């Protein structure tokens, strides 16, 4: 996965709360068997409206999504993260994310940043008034910067280290193969098996 150190880009202010993953990428898109090509499904229903913020010409090429609270609730579909990435978003800022969505995003290198709603309001006002305003998300400093906004954010050290280095989860875990083998050796015999080993 791609490393994330810092990113600067224009923003899309999305004034909606409780955006569930069905809205981010509707179920019928889940039929694809690849990891790319989901950009056209992103917020598909809302994008039918030409005034929807993502459709506005001045938002073209924006890469920072500033969303309302409880972003990514509902189904665990990782396609929601791929759709955002395929569309070109590098980072999503909200005051609250659904757990599964947040886990999925960090694993795929989409940085989800939690900030106070006050800061979100400020970012909304700024980027609505001036669509060319840039927002910087600096993972090294754990800081979001924009005109008139300087906000620190938290991210657990481990997730941060992996994002900064672009490390893939599986290779990291497989470094601990002896621990896995040792655990397997002591697992009780009564545990279920789907087939005879």
């Amino acid at each position, binding site marked *: 996965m791609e490393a994330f150190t810092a990113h600067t880009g224009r923003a899309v202010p999305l004034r909606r709360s409780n955006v569930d993953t069905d809205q981010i990428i509707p179920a019928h898109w889940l039929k694809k068997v690849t990891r790319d090509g989901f950009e056209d499904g992103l917020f598909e229903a809302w994008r039918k409206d030409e005034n929807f913020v993502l459709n506005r010409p001045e938002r073209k090429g924006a890469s920072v999504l500033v969303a309302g609270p409880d972003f990514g609730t509902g189904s665990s579909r990782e396609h929601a993260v791929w759709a955002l990435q395929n569309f070109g978003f590098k980072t999503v800022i909200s005051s609250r994310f659904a757990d599964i969505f947040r886990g999925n995003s960090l694993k795929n290198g989409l940085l989800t940043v939690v900030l106070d709603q006050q800061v979100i309001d400020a970012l909304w006002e700024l980027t609505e008034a001036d669509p060319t305003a840039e927002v910087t998300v600096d993972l090294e400093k754990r800081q979001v910067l924009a005109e008139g906004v300087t906000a620190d954010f938290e991210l657990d050290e481990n997730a941060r280290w992996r994002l900064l280095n672009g490390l893939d989860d599986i290779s990291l875990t497989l470094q601990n193969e002896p621990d*896995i083998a040792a655990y397997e050796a002591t697992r009780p015999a009564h545990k279920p098996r789907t087939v005879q080993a």
Partner: protein
Amino acid sequence: MGRTLAEKVWDDHVVRRAEGEPDLLFIDLHLLHEVTSPQAFDGLRQAGRPVRRLDLTIATEDHNTPTLDIDKPIADPVSRAQLETLRKNCADFGVRLHPLGDVEQGVVHVVGPQLGLTQPGTTVVCGDSHTSTHGAFGALAFGIGTSQVEHVLATQTLPLARPKTMAITVEGELPDSVTAKDLILAIIARIGTGGGQGYILEYRGSAIEKLSMEARMTICNMSIEAGARAGMIAPDRTTFDYLRGRDHAPEGEDWDAAVAYWETLRTDDDAVFDAEVVIEAAGLAPFVTWGTNPGQGAPLSASVPDPASYEDASERNAAEKALEYMGLTAGQPLREINVDTVFVGSCTNGRIEDLRNAAAIMDGRQVADGVRMLVVPGSVRVALQAVEEGLDKVFKAAGAEWRHAGCSMCLGMNPDQLAPGERSASTSNRNFEGRQGKGGRTHLVSPQVAAATAVLGHLASPADLSDARTPAGV
């Protein structure tokens, strides 16, 4: 200090714990279906990795499968491609698969428990948020994303930060007409769709202990709709009795060893939860949703709420949007909402007990004119059991459609969908915009309310039916 049930199961699965890192947890059971697995297998292939534990992995087809004409080729090319991809992946990697047409096929969360694979004190994952269902057995079970599916396939482990714990204590006796579905809808309305976020819920208390395994699964299933990744119920006699003799339940000495372990899986008296919610069972009533998230619900006897009555601006806004989408007006009695379609099925309420409950109400009654009722068993085994009990005949005699097992109208991914503007009473778990088909409007209900609604054509509970039965019972 004592530990909670969730903490015990968690601790028993830690493969590696290191300062500043998430715990690496061993996964006992990995369930797969066609929607969230293709990209995971893709990843394995690209990296040249095998599936580490084929003996802890099992797949079935459910989301895309039609519920009619299942012997014909699947018409939708994309659905067909997903199913074919799963079949190819399972064949290539050697994973046990129950495809459409197989006797063990069905909704993944119905199949795992009925095979006896879901057991107390195990860790269960699936690329599907309703994996929380399996927590009804005292398993730590949660939905994962596709990259985690790949991770489990490759390593049989997951690195995870330990969530906090929340007790949801339900004391007393549920009134006669109140089911597990009503209870969980009421819980979600109370704590909100974000209320369980960051927590593993443990449902406990005398009302929970009295519930059947089916009812417990209904409750744990919807933990995710309260924002929690997992919900659990301590295993007890009811759990052991359900498991004994099932295909993959332990036998002989293993059974004894298992039960001895399972009996330790109770929250210690001196354990401390990070949060607790207490609910009086006696105060509950049949519950339905009026909005577009599962927290937007109310007792059936209530009316559509007025958005202006919400103090919180974002809740008010959400309620306004929901009423617009749902085509409802504030103050309208919920009982006066007419429906076009009734759906009985899904991993929330598609098990045998649910079908029995719905059939008991349909017996000798008719589906109202202009209403379509779909009854979709959660699995082929459930269907066979229902046929053995004659439930299919009851539904058919009432004018309902008896379908083949699958996710069906729970989500708009297979031919069973609502048309734009159509309204359903559905025993599934999500009333999100478009969930049952583009523009479709969903009211979440229990199987009993679904059946009464089918008979009367408007949202109703069995109590509203007192004289609608014709004596011609099957």
